[in-house]
Each structure stands twice: as C-alpha cells, then as structure tokens.
C-alpha cells in the first residue's frame, strides 16, 4: 500500500554512507582533542585559548549537522533547515539577551 511507504519505516531516505560517517567521526574527535590538548598543556594565552575553543565548538556544530544530521541531503520542504534557522535565532536571543540583562546585575 502506498500509504505505508509514505510514512512507515519502510521508506528509505538516504542515510549517508559509511565513508561520510567515518569522516564525520574522525573530524569530531579531532575537534574535541585540539582544545583539550591546548588547555591541558597551557599552550596559549587565556584569550587565544578561549577563542580557539569557541571556533572549535562552532566547527563541531557544523560537522554534526552535515555528517550526522544530513542537513545537505534533505528533500523539500526543508523543515530541518527551517528548524535550524529558528533554533539559531532562539540561541542568539538566549545568549545576547542574557548578556544584556545580566550586565546590570553583576555581583561583585
């Protein structure tokens, strides 16, 4: 029955290949190790370390989305992309809003 294929678990959307999973896995490990090594060995100044941790975090986020969440392979309508954009807006609101509100409430 057609309906089953439309929403049953039998529908086989592409779920990525072994190769892309391995690349994603390796990338995510490397991106985790870099900040760990930097911090454990006190290699850079505090500011530089913070900056690198942030950059690695953003890259990690991208790796997860591309290799594990299959953001590129999505068919239309692109609900995942919409959800991602909305999520980023909320994230920005949480971070920027908190900083703005808490500026006036710092203790000490």
């Amino acid at each position, binding site marked *: 029955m057609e309906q089953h294929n439309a929403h049953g678990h039998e529908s086989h959307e592409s779920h990525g290949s072994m190769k892309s999973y391995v690349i994603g896995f390796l990338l995510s490990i490397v991106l985790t190790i870099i900040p760990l090594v930097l911090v454990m060995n006190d290699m850079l100044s505090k500011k530089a370390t913070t900056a690198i941790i942030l950059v690695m975090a953003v890259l990690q986020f991208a790796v997860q989305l591309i290799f594990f969440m299959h953001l590129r392979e999505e068919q239309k309508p692109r609900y995942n992309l919409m959800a991602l954009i909305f999520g980023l807006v909320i994230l920005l609101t949480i971070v920027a809003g908190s900083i703005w*509100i808490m500026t006036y409430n710092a203790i000490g």
Partner: protein
Amino acid sequence: MLDKIKEFASEFFVTGDPLILGAQVSIALSLVAIIFTLTFFKKWKWLWTEWLTSVDHKKIGIMYIIASILMLFRGGVDALLMRVQLAAPELEFLHPEHYNQIFTTHGVIMILFMAMPLMFGLFNIVVPLQIGARDVAFPFLNSLSFWMFFFGAMLFNVSFIIGGSPDAGWLAYPPLSELSGSPGLGQDFYIWGIQISGIGSLATGINFVVTILKMRAPGMKLMQMPMFVWSVLSSCITIMFAFPILTVTLFLLFLDRYLGAHFFTLDGGGNPMMYINLIWMWGHPEVYIVILPAFGIFSEVVSAFSKKKLFGYKSMVFALMSISFFSFFTWAHHFFTMGSGANVNAFFALTTMLIAIPTGVKVFNWLFTMYRGRIKFTTPMMWTVAFIPCFVVGGMTGVLLSVAPADFQFHNSYFLIAHFHQVLIGGVVFGYFAGLYYWWPKMFGFRLHEGLGKWAFWFWNIGFYVCFMPQYALGLMGMTRRVNEYDFDMGWQPLNVISTVGAFLMGLAFIFQVWQIAHSIKFYKKEKDGDAWDGRTLEWSIPSPAPLYNFARLPQVTHQDDWWEEKQRIAAGGAPKPLAPLEPIHMPKNSGIPFIMSVCWFTAGFGFVWDWKWMIVTGLAGVAVCMLARSFSYDTDYYIPVDEIERTEAALRGTK
C-alpha cells in the same frame, strides 16, 4: 536492629503532621485496595497487555487524562488548604513550613502535572484522528513520553510522604533553592521529578511536530488542517525550543546542589539572578505552550456549534504562529523589579504588549464566527462562551502588569496572583474542559450527562469570580503572594473570606464533574454513530470510540472541514464517494520497554535524591539495558489482515 529501622523510617517518611499522616494512611489503604481489586478480578494481565504496554495513541491519551485529573484533585486540595489558612490565619491551620510546601507543590502540580498532561492527552486522542492518520509518527516514543511524565510526576508527588516536599516556590529560585537555603530533600525531588517528566514533554513535542508535518491524510494541505492541529503545531514547536532551556537550568541547579558547583550561589562567582533569567526563558514560552492548544479547542468548538466555517482561518494561523515566535522574546517581564535598567524593561514591556495583539485578533475571530451562526449551547460551547470575557479581563490585567513602572507596584502581589489564575483557569482550564466535553463521545463512545455538566459549569464560573476578583483588590491593598498570615488590622480578612468561599464553590464544581462522569457511566448509552455533534472535521467520520487502526480506508481530503463539506455534498444529492478496496494495515506492536525504562529512571532519580549510589547505578544501568534492548529488537510491527478489518468494521457499523 529495630532501633535502626525506626531511625531510618523516621528519616525516610515525613512525620509529625496529622494532615500528612492522614494522607499516608489513605494512600496506603488505596494502594492495598487497588492491588486487591486487580488480583481478585485477575486483571493484572489485562492491565499490562491492554494499557501499560500499549502504543495506541488513543489509550495513551486516556491514561494522560486520568493522570491529569488525579493531579487536578491533588493540586485542588492544596489550593483549598491554602484558602482555609488565609481565611482565618489566626487559627494556624497550617504551619508556616507546611504552607510553603503547599504553595510550591500547588504551582508545580497544576502547571506541569495537570495542565501539561491534560493537553498531551487531548493531543494524543485528537490530532491523529483529525489529520486522518493511524497513529502518531513515533508510537514507541509516545508511550515512553507518557511513562516518563507519569514516573516523573510520581517522584515529585511521593516527596510529600517520603523525604519532605519542596518549599522554595514553584520555580525554585536560588539562593533559597540552593543547598544553603534548602538543605532538605524536597528540592532534589523537585529537580528530578521535573527533569524526568521534562524529557517526556520534549519527546512529545517532537513527536507531534513530525506527525503533523509528515502523516496528514492524502490531499490535506497545511492550510486545510483543522485549527486545533495548527494550535498543536505551534505549541509543540514552542516545546521543542523551550524545554531544553528548562532541562539545562535545572541541571545546573543540580550540579550546584549535588557537586558543589557555583552557578547560582552567592559566592564563588555564581549569580542567582542568572537562574531567574534562564528559568523564565522556559517559563514564559511554557504558559503559551499550555494556552495555544486551548485556543485551538475554542476554534473547533465555536465553529462546530455555530454551524459556520471558522472566521478568519488565515489570520488565526498567523496569530498562533506569531504568538509561538514572540513568546520567546518577553521573558524579562517576570522580573522587571530585578533592576536590569530602563532599556531592558522598556524593550520587554513593548514585546509583552505586542504579543497581546494576535491574541486580540483571535477573540474577534471567535466572535465573528458566532455572529449570525445557529448557536447551540451545549456544555463545550458554554465553556467557550464563558472563556471569552474571562480571558479578555485576564489579558487586560496582564497588559496592566506589562507596564514596567506600574509593575513595581503590582509585582508579586495578589494582583499578579489573580491575573495569572484568571488566564490559566479562564483560558487553559476552561479550554481543556471544553475539549474534554467536546471529544468525550469520541474517546469513550458515550455522552456525558448535560444537566450535571451545566451545574458544574455554573459552580466553576461563579466560584471563579468569587474567588479571584477579591484578590485583585487585595493585591492593590498590599497583600503579597506566599504570605501565610496577616494582622487583623490590615483589613484583608473580609475579602480573603469571600475568596475562600469562591474556592470551595470550585471544589463543589469538581465534585459535580465527578458525579457527572459516574452518572453517565452508570446510565451508559452507546453512541449510535460516530458523529456526536454533527461535526466538521475528520474525527467525526469514524465510529466512536475509534477502532485500533482509526481509518479502515485513509480519507482523501479536498477541503478544509472536509467531513462537513462531504455531508453537505451528499445532502445536496451528490453520490457518496466509491469505497476503495481494503488493504492490510501496518501497525506498531506493543512494547513493555517504555514502562520498564521509566521505572528505571524513577529508580535512578530516587537514588539521586537520597544519594544512594547503588540505587543510582542500578537505575541508570536499567535505562542502558532498555535502550540496547530496543535498538536490537526488529520485531516491532505487524499487519492487520483484510478479513479482520472487515469483521471489525462490520461489527462497528452494524450497531448503527
């Protein structure tokens, strides 16, 4: 040995309060009674196979509703106890500590364990039927969501007889909720109860977004969905983005309490204000999460009982979606008095006023739907009509509160208490009652007694105004929330007594509702066909209660209010659509894993509360085993053969 047991028991159980002792005895007795009844009638197997392991959205919905009504009872008793104390504070009916516990549990239970599950119950029962689907997108996850909610709620509730209730307010502001302010176990029960049920809520949110986007009947466009489905979509999107904030915030509080971190402490670089900021980022969207589906219910009811298409469908959709978006930008209005400065307060005052606009749009849409309609005043319609003025007044007082300078006067006074009870009772509770009465015949296949329902309606409504109108005045007279006593010369007593009378009227109304249900079961009369109210949407096109697979043939949708259009077409002499041949129906198999896994979470949570390492490890190991078991089970679905569908359909339609 005996002394040791005694010592342990006195620490384990809450002792020393006659009210709680009474509750402990009655809980023990009812547990014994339940176990005896199940054993005597040999119903254990039935309970397990038909209910506890069920992945059927209709049964899960009914279990949600039963749980939420039990919680409504408990939260309501809490409310009445508080009102007794406030009517005559000199009697010292409740000790101050006990009073603190009761207002805390009242708030948590009513929002998280009454409103949320009642809402999820209605989602479960109605959404798949309205969009012409056979179940939700992830039936297993759905069952897991329910049991996570249930055991989270149980973990929270058990605190009042074991270990001690939380007493730091329903949102547990630090530093009071930190280890320094609340050294007891109550706060840990609070954290774990809400965390565990919160996972369930988040999963339900995701489940219904996917269900609505992916599982609509062939032909049903987004802009042809019933308005309730739209409201569920907007509410679930809000859940998806708001609940993670709650989880993270409570987790940070847990780290503070359990591992001695300093996120929200006063020393060590922490800041309690940050908790208030974070918790309201969830808390404000949360109130829209519970009210949006109520708006959807009102839209369905108004259109069905005015015999008219909903006025302004598109503007309604736009209003719902913009509310769920803007709800993320108003949180600071809960703490205007925190001292964030004029710019912050001005910004959030403006967003708060803005969000009132789409709500106003909806009120006009409902009024115009009723305008020149053939209105039938059934109980669901009466709740809807009573909701409109109540919610408008409640909303207006909200706009008053949103004026930041004036809020310095109103903040945390009884004016605020009256405001949010008016929008939550007048909006959410009235809405869910309307939904419950409207869809009751669809859930159970019989109608509720209308006369008793009308008694309950009037007692609720009159009781509501008698209870909460005096509280606006009390707030302006200076009475603040969470006080358990006041001096006679404050002049607050007369109004407090009136308010208490109103609360008991609502208590009476609840008894009328229980009576109504009992009466209707006793004089059970089966619904002759599935279309109890001459409805407009797809759920009324199938028998009541719906068969396991909902739709023997999936409907082909061509219109908004498709069932109504089809009935009109046939009444005008059109030929009924030819029936497509039946085909085997693909269904999910029941599973015991959600129940067992939630028991394991409960065990782990209980272990964390008491800091019993062996219990934590056992619980979490159980969770891991359940996850593995599910990952490796491939036998999760089956087909209902055609002849079985034919037999079921013949039996169902044969009673026509």
